[in-house]
């Protein structure tokens, strides 16, 4: 297990290296000049050139990238071109809200999606199954922007049950988490249903039933444990997705997460912030997937890492 974990950590370093290089290359290839975006419309060409030199953007691509990697080894993500603040500080200020939104969203996805998935699987081919799958499809297909604004209007404005937006306590978290949760719950419901149907057809489930175990006991004690493996994998993926930021929901609700930070950076070609957030997100995704893989043997003892 330890060897497996170390191997995966080395893999993760490789992933981060590739992610940083690809992002750096893509941003470098953009037909846009960060120095001009920093300088603004009234700056003379001489001022733009002077800013370009100060930012080190006049150096060749590989020299810029090598310099970036050198700083990265000291966990220095550089300074934002536009804000002049250390990127590390900017990311750090957004981790808390992003983490809260991620936990809230995943909790709601599971709370809504898992019971519906179980219900659909147990009522296979009957109206509850059709209803759940229909709802799951609608939930997954609903545009986030529309859903977010509708929830704001109905629950925050019309009935004044929640704040209209912004960041604060639990009441501020519910609507953005629900927006993400409704969409994600559909996927969880569909996945658990499929996985559970597969498990319920296995021989050991038939044996458990034949031995006279109650349906609830069979479901919780035998079926669910194995059926949740893909759900755990999906939670790992979700952690990565949400930690990378969710631009639309954060923008509508004024949630100060990483999504908005990187979106603002993209608009003004703020390369250090863009690359910094990508590297951070890649690190989180890799780590989350590693954790999901490490949890699998505890859920299903048949899985062993050597």
């Amino acid at each position, binding site marked *: 297990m330890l060897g497996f974990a170390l191997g995966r950590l080395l893999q993760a370093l490789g992933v981060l290296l590739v992610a940083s290089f690809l992002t750096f290359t893509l941003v470098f290839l*953009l*037909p*846009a*000049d960060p120095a*001009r*975006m*920093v*300088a*603004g*419309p*009234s*700056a*003379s*060409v*001489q*001022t*733009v*050139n*002077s*800013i370009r*030199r*100060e*930012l080190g953007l006049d150096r060749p691509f590989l020299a810029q990238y090598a310099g970036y990697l050198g700083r990265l080894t000291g966990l220095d993500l550089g*300074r934002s071109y*536009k*804000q*002049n*603040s*250390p990127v590390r500080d*900017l990311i750090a*200020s*957004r981790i808390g*809200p992003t983490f809260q939104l991620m936990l809230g969203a995943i909790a709601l996805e599971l709370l809504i999606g898992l019971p519906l998935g179980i219900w659909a699987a147990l009522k296979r081919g009957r109206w509850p199954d059709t209803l759940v799958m229909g709802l799951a499809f609608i939930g997954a297909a609903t545009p986030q922007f*529309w859903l977010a*604004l509708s929830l*704001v*209007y109905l629950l*925050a*404005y019309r009935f*004044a049950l929640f704040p*209209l*937006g*912004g*960041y604060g306590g639990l009441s501020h978290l519910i609507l953005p988490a629900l927006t993400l949760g409704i969409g994600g719950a559909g996927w969880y419901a569909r996945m658990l249903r499929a996985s559970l149907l597969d498990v319920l057809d296995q021989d050991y489930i038939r044996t458990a039933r034949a031995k006279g175990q109650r349906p609830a006991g069979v479901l919780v004690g035998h079926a669910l444990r194995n059926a949740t493996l893909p759900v755990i994998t999906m939670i790992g993926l979700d952690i990565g997705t949400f930690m990378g930021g969710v631009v639309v929901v*954060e*923008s*509508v*609700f*004024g*949630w*100060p*997460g990483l999504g*908005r*930070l990187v979106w*603002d950076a993209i*608009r*003004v*070609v703020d390369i250090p912030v863009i690359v910094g957030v990508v590297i951070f997100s890649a690190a989180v995704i890799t780590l989350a997937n590693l954790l999901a893989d490490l949890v699998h043997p505890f859920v299903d003892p048949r899985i062993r890492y050597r």
Partner: protein
Amino acid sequence: MRRTIPRAVPAALLMSLSLAATQTASAQTPARGGSIVVSYKDDVTTLDPAIGYDYQNWPIEKMVFDGLLDYAPGGTTLQPRLAAKMPTVSKDGLTYTFTLRPGVKFHNGRELVADDVVYTLTRVLDPKTKSPGQSFYTGIKGAQAFVDGKAKTVSGLKASGKYGLSITLEAPNAAFLNIMAMNFAYVVPKEEVAKAGGDFGHKPVGSGPFTLSKWVSGQSLEFKRNPAYFYNSLPYLDGVTIKVGLDPSVAFLSLTRGEVDLLGDGIPPAQFLQVVKDPRYRANILNKTSVNTSYLSLNTQVKPLSDVRVRQAINMAIDKTKLVRIINGRAQVAKTYLPPLMPGYDAGAKGYAFDPAGARKLLAAAGLSKGFDTVLYTNSTDPNPRLAQSIQQDLAAVGIRASIKSQAQSTVIEAAGTKGAAPMVWSGGMAWTQDYPDPSDFYWPILSCRSAVSGGWNWPWYCDKALDARADKADRMVAPGQQAARLNEYKAIFAALDKQAVWVPIYHEVRHVMHSDKLVGTAADLLDPIHFISYERLSVKK
């Protein structure tokens, strides 16, 4: 007081409509105390006056910092602020002598002195600062040598004693005092810049009417009244909170519920028509024409646009009224390059009338009776692609086949600043807005030979050395008695440009602001042509 919103608004949340607006003003005797909440969609990037340079930064920087000079509220007349009086100017028009007000304190308690002004301007010029405003101040004697690293100080900046300051220029510049009133020249204390370690933009300390008390990245900025502020018993408010990241539609709902007092981004397009037509909101909405021009640039270096007749034909082919309708009427049709509030604006200018038949005749005279193919660049943010499509249709009606390239703003800017790359550029989202109220600001950065360079902002790539010489000569007219003649000369310069048809000036935006019932502010305070919002002059009903 809370307001309810009409039931029809949910539908308005999801669609755009069209306009007519009302003009009111809450002119009441300002009461002292209270606080307001202002909403913005985008985060505030920095409050370093040497760096922050957009419609959102400017008014907020003005809360924390002061310049030697400022403008009369809502107008373009310069007044002393940190300066005790207007400066004296030497006979040759090169040296400005300022006397500072004694006893003005920075927020850290230290007195503001002339050395601070010298430090401030030197810092803006220093390439390490990366100030977008550097080029405004390179006309100071010795500034270019300092920028190039050939001198350690700027020879034209001299402090004499605590309150005396002289600034000597390389050449007379009639707009120099306007430049001294810009945010870049807001005075900063050296020790606080050093203490912030490169992050002064997030830890600003100035001498202004408010102090920054709290800044939570991506959420809000909180300002408190500076009790020691020296000017005209300002400000009236005890506090201002800037909430960032709120979607404009959500911000609007927040305002109707009394949680927000001012929509920094204005009324969202989706609700615009409904809101301005609702009599209940009449007292909450103010509007004013901005000092900017949205235009279609015509690249004089690209055939067949190099032929003035073709450019004139394009000017005649475009229905500007239709374009204004597309943006719900939130603009005034432009007849010339300068906006109406800009000194030097020619009220008698007629521009080119919408005349497709005349346009076709001109094209035929240019040997293009079958039209031609060209490319129109536009920023991809709504409503610009829709506006570009309208221009495309108008051009098609006279035989010009324009294909639209709708791209990110930074990409459009890059193409427009590359010689021969962009035949036509719609400036929507990148309209030229005054840096300061002087016509030279509409000439040198965007229409002169010095800006017709790679990476410049002269998108028509038009260079007329004779016009440059005339503008240069006009800028040397610094004596008070020469000002009318100077403005007339600029009128003539822009008339010449109009004849050359290097732009199609389309419209001047009309800004609308919406405020809560409790906020008290006039159009001069909330739609200031320079500062946009004068927070120091706002108050709340008691």
